[in-house]
C-alpha cells in the first residue's frame, strides 16, 4: 500500500442513503481475476445509459448526463461525499478498487458499512466519518459552490475547507499509522508467527477435530 498523509481535491456529492457495493461496482465486473480495470465501471449502471460488460469498448459508451459523476463541475473529484450506511451489502473489495481507480482517494459519510470500511483502509482509501449535520452543510456547499475542494489531513485528523472551517474526525491510531507509513498488514501480522504457531499447537491438542487431514473424501 502506498503511504498517504494528505488528500486535497474536488468534492463530488452523492446525495443518497445506503449506497451499496452492487451499485458501486456491478456483479459482471467481479468475474475479473485482476485488481485493475474497474475505474471506468465505477457506478456503471448509474453512470452510463448503455449496459456495461467487462472488456467492452469504452469509446462507444453513452454517459448518463444526469448522474453526478458526469456533471462537468465534478470531473476530476478526489473526495466523494456520501450519506448514511455507505458501502452496504456485498463484501466485494472491487468496490474500493473501482473508487480508487476512478480517482477517489477519500469518502466522507456519516457512517459506513463494516466490511466496506475495513476494505477501504486496507487499500489506502480513507473512509472519514463526520457528524450528520456537518455532512449536511458539506452537501449544501458542494452544490452551491463551483469547484468546492477539501483538504483531508491524516496527522491532525482534520478536514479543512478554504473558508477556514475545520472538521475533526476519529481515526484509530493503528489505521492512521498503517496509512501514513504505507504498511503492509500481512507483513505486520506475520511478525507474530511464533504466537500463531503456539496457539495452533495448543488448539490441535485440545480440539483435534478442528485439524482434519486432507483427502477424506473425493
Amino acid at each position, binding site marked *: 500500500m502506498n503511504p498517504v498523509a494528505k488528500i486535497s481535491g474536488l468534492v463530488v456529492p452523492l446525495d443518497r442513503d445506503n449506497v451499496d457495493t452492487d451499485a458501486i461496482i456491478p456483479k*459482471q465486473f467481479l*468475474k475479473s481475476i485482476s485488481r485493475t480495470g474497474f475505474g471506468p465501471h465505477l457506478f456503471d*449502471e448509474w453512470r452510463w445509459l448503455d449496459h456495461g460488460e467487462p472488456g467492452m469498448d469504452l469509446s462507444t459508451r453513452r454517459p448518463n448526463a444526469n448522474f453526478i459523476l458526469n456533471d462537468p463541475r465534478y470531473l476530476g473529484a478526489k473526495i466523494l461525499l456520501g450519506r448514511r450506511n455507505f458501502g452496504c451489502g456485498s463484501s466485494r*473489495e472491487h468496490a474500493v478498487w473501482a473508487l480508487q481507480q476512478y480517482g477517489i482517494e477519500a469518502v466522507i459519510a456519516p457512517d459506513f*458499512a463494516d*466490511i466496506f470500511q*475495513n476494505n477501504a483502509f486496507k487499500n489506502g482509501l480513507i473512509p472519514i466519518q463526520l457528524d450528520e449535520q456537518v455532512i449536511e452543510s458539506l452537501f449544501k456547499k458542494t452544490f452551491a459552490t463551483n469547484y468546492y475542494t477539501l483538504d483531508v489531513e491524516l496527522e491532525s485528523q482534520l478536514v479543512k475547507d478554504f473558508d477556514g472551517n475545520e472538521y475533526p474526525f476519529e481515526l484509530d491510531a*493503528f489505521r492512521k499509522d498503517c496509512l501514513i507509513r504505507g504498511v503492509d498488514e500481512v507483513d505486520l501480522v506475520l511478525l507474530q508467527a511464533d504466537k500463531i504457531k503456539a496457539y*495452533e499447537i495448543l488448539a490441535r491438542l485440545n480440539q483435534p477435530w478442528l485439524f482434519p487431514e486432507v483427502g*477424506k473424501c473425493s
Partner: protein
Amino acid sequence: MTAKTLYEKLWDSHLVHQQENGNALIYIDRHYVIEVTSAQAYEGLRLKGLKVWRPESIIATADHNTPTRNWNLGISDPISKLQLQTLDENIKDFGALHYYPFKHRLQGIAHIIGPEQGGTLPGMTVVCGDSHTSTHGALGALAFGIGTSDVEMVLASQCLDIKPLKSMRVNVNGRLSRGVSAKDVALHLIGLIGTGGGAGHAIEFAGDTVRAMSMESRMTLCNMAIEAGARAGMVAVDSITLNYVKGRLYAPIGEAWSDAIKKWQELRSDDGALFNREVSIDATLIEPYVSWGTSPELVVKITGNIPDPANEPDSARRSWLEGALSYMGLTANIPIQSIQIDKVFIGSCANSRIEDLRAAARVVEGRHISSNIMQALVVPGSMEVKAQAEVEGLDRIFTDAGFEWRQPGCSMCVGINEDRLNPGERCASTSNRNFEGRQGPGGRTHLLSPEMAAAAAILGHFTDVRLILGS
C-alpha cells in the same frame, strides 16, 4: 467468573495476540475459498513469495459463476471460465482440505455445502470472501464475511486482524404462525432496525422461537444478519445443533465426538451476560413479509400497502424512498397483493436448503404456476440438497407445476451466470438482496420466503400463503 456472551467465548478462545491498538489477531479455523474473491488474494501471495499457512483449513468451491443447466456444455463465458480455471490452479498450487470444483458430485453454494459436509463445526471461527458467511454462525460459530485483502491475510497467516465487535441479542419469543418462517423473522428484524442497525455488532439470535427452529431456519436467520448490517450472526449450541452435526463428513467421531460435545455444550451466553444492545420480538405478531424497495429494510406485511414516501419527515430518507419506489415501478399506497410478477426464484444461500424446498413444494403441490409467470426457477443449494429433494419427489412437484429444476449455484441471487432478470422484470425471490440491478440490470427484486414465493408463482401476484395453506 464474569458471565460471558457466546460471542465473547468464541472471540476469547481464538485470541492469538491482543495488540496495543485495540485490534486483535483472531485465529481462523475454517476458510471457505470461492472463485469470485480469491484470485487477487492468491496473486498477492505469489507476489510476496508466501505460502498458505494451513491449507487444511481451506474448503474451496466455485458457486457464483457456475451455470445451473447444460453442465455438459461447460462454461460459455470466457471471463467466467478463466476465473474458474484460476481457482483450479490456485488450489492445485497452494492446497486445500477439499475442493468442490464445477461439476463435482457434491458441488454447491459455499454456505450450503460447508455446514452440510461438517466443514463448519460449533466453536469454529469461519471466514469467506463473501458477506453471507454469517450463515455459518447458526452452528454456534463466529463467522465473518471478508474482503479480498483479508482473504490474503488469512491465507498467509491463518489470522484476521480485527477490532472487537459489540454484541447484540435479538430475543424472539412466541410461536410462529403457519406460513410464517425464519425469513419473515429476518425481514421483520431488518425492517425494525434497518440495514445499518447491526453495524459494528455480532448478533446472537435467542429466545424460544429460535430454540424451536431447525438448523436450516437458523441458517436463514444468520444469513440475513449481514442485511441488518451486522458483521456476524450466531445461535447457541443445543441438541438440535448436535443432532445436525453428528455423522457429517468432517464431524468428529468416537471419543473425539464425546470430547467435542462437552466443549460445544458451553457454547451459549451465560446467564447474566451483558449485551451492548438487546432487541425483543414477539413472534406471534410476525406476518409473512415482502420487500417492496431496493434495500432489505424496505418491507411490508403481506396484508399491507406500499408506503407513501410523503409521510417520511427526513428529507434525505424521503428522496431515497422516492427513488426506490420509482426504480421498482410502483405507486404508493397500493396493496402489495395487487402487484403482478414476471419471474420467481427459489434458491440462494438464504433459502435453498432441503427444508426450504419442502416448504415451497407443499404450497405448489397439485397446482400450476400462473400464466403470467415467464420463468420460475428452483435452484437447490447443493448437489446433496438436489439429490435429497429428488428422493422425496420434490423435483416432480415443481416441474409438474411449471417450475424449472436446476443444478446448484448462486444463480439468480447475484446474476453473475446467465440466470438473471431483464430490465423491468419483477421477481419474487427467496434471496437476500434487492439492490438495484442485483438480479440483472433494471431488474426488480422482491424478497420473501420460499412458501411465499411459491404462492406468488401460483397466483401470479403476491398473496398471503396462509390462505393457501389453510384451504
